[in-house]
């Protein structure tokens, strides 16, 4: 692979010699050969040089062989059965398996990035649809949800608003409990607030609204989404929907880890086998 580096730095004279040598060995492409022969026809010095090279090649070819000093036959008593070298025999299989595992790993990583890019929309959309399923909370939650959605992309922070909505951490808690167990768990929400949050949906909706208006920092964007999801505690069908996305992500993560481990193991075996092949 790195032979290119060795050829760098050939002088013009060396390249000329190379052309002469390759012509002698009939190793030039037809076009190159034709060009060289045209040049050869009009250059007696080049013809003499070619003649000398031909003489050298003939001399080397006709070097007589020495007789072997002894027999190199193997002693059956010592060398019985050829020793089994499983790595050597499995080399082509290992090569294919390593390549396939690498491909699958890259594919699952790309899939993870792709799904992760749409993840924030999931919990927001889910609660939004969940809200549609609820009864009296729907009217209040929907606007809150709509308010919450823009905040996914919001970059401004409003710590004051956060302070004015003391129920917000409590709202975050139920959201964490309802199953957004992945990044949302970072909220560090406490579940005890869950029960309080389930009472008085109106209160929840009201508190959600100002919380929804709040600009979000990175974690708050998710927190806002979670604020809308308290409604989910009243809508049991919502829970499975919320849980399928994070569950899917964790499954993908497990697959990625398994593939990464498999790839590393196969790569190690492949290099060991290749070393044995190269030592043949």
């Amino acid at each position, binding site marked *: 692979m790195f032979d290119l580096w060795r050829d760098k730095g050939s002088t013009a004279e060396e390249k000329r010699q190379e052309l002469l040598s390759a012509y002698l060995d009939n190793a030039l492409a037809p076009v190159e050969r034709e060009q060289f022969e045209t040049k050869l026809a009009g250059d007696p010095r080049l013809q003499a040089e070619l003649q000398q090279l031909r*003489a050298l090649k003939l001399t080397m070819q006709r070097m007589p062989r*020495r007789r072997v*000093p002894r027999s190199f036959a193997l002693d059956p008593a010592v*060398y019985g059965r050829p020793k089994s070298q499983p790595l050597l025999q499995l080399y082509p299989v290992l090569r294919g398996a390593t390549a396939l595992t690498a491909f699958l790993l890259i594919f699952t990583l790309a899939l993870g990035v792709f799904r992760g890019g749409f993840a924030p929309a999931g919990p927001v959309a889910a609660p939004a649809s969940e809200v549609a399923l609820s009864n009296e909370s729907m009217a209040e939650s929907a606007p809150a949800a709509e308010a919450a959605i823009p905040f996914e992309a919001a970059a401004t922070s409003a710590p004051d608003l956060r302070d004015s909505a003391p129920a917000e951490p409590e709202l975050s808690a139920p959201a964490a409990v309802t199953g957004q167990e992945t990044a949302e768990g970072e909220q560090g929400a406490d579940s005890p607030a869950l029960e309080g949050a389930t009472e008085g949906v109106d209160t929840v909706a009201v508190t959600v609204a100002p919380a929804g208006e709040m600009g979000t920092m990175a974690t708050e964007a998710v927190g806002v989404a979670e604020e809308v999801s308290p409604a989910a505690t009243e809508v049991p069908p919502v829970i499975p929907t919320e849980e399928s996305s994070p569950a899917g992500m964790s499954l993908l993560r497990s697959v990625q880890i398994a593939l990464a481990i498999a790839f590393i193991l196969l790569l190690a075996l492949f290099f060991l086998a290749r070393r044995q092949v190269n030592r*043949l």
Partner: protein
Amino acid sequence: MDEETLIQRAQKGDVAAFNRLVVQYQELVFNVAYRIMGDPAVAEDVAQETFIAAYQSLRSFRGGSFKSWLMRVATNRCYDELRRRKRRPQTSLDEIMDENESFAFLRSPNDSPETHRQRVELALAIEQCLKSLPDDQRIVTVLGDVEGYDYNEIATITKTSLGTVKSRLSRARAKLRECLQALGGELLPAAYRLDNEGLSAR
């Protein structure tokens, strides 16, 4: 028994079948090792290691040219030995002259004493000049010019690119020409005359 059958039997553990292959190829392997290593005693060890390694790895041979496969094993053993010794074999002309038994194989029935002397001088000069080459260049010269492998075969045996083979062979030939001219300016024209006497033209 044909070669393919011998190989198949040897792959199953038939040492006698493998030894028939050894008999067929041992002169080739020994001479390649000798030209690369420059020392008959070392060449003996390398040749033996080659056949041992070939037998033990025979199951990895999956068809194609057994001769080329064996050459790769031999070349790799030479590389290993060269790395072990970490020196280029350098024997003075006087030391080579002392190996009286090595000249017998140069004798041709129609040779006059003068012709024989020229042959010996030329052989010694070529050996000397081959030894002065860098290892990589010497190996491609032995495989290409001495043993007659083409560029593609040499590239496969030495696991290098076609461009590298061309480059190394060209440089080796330039160095050999200079070396032979330095040792005795008439060697090459004499060699050319020797080659034309009673030999078919190429």
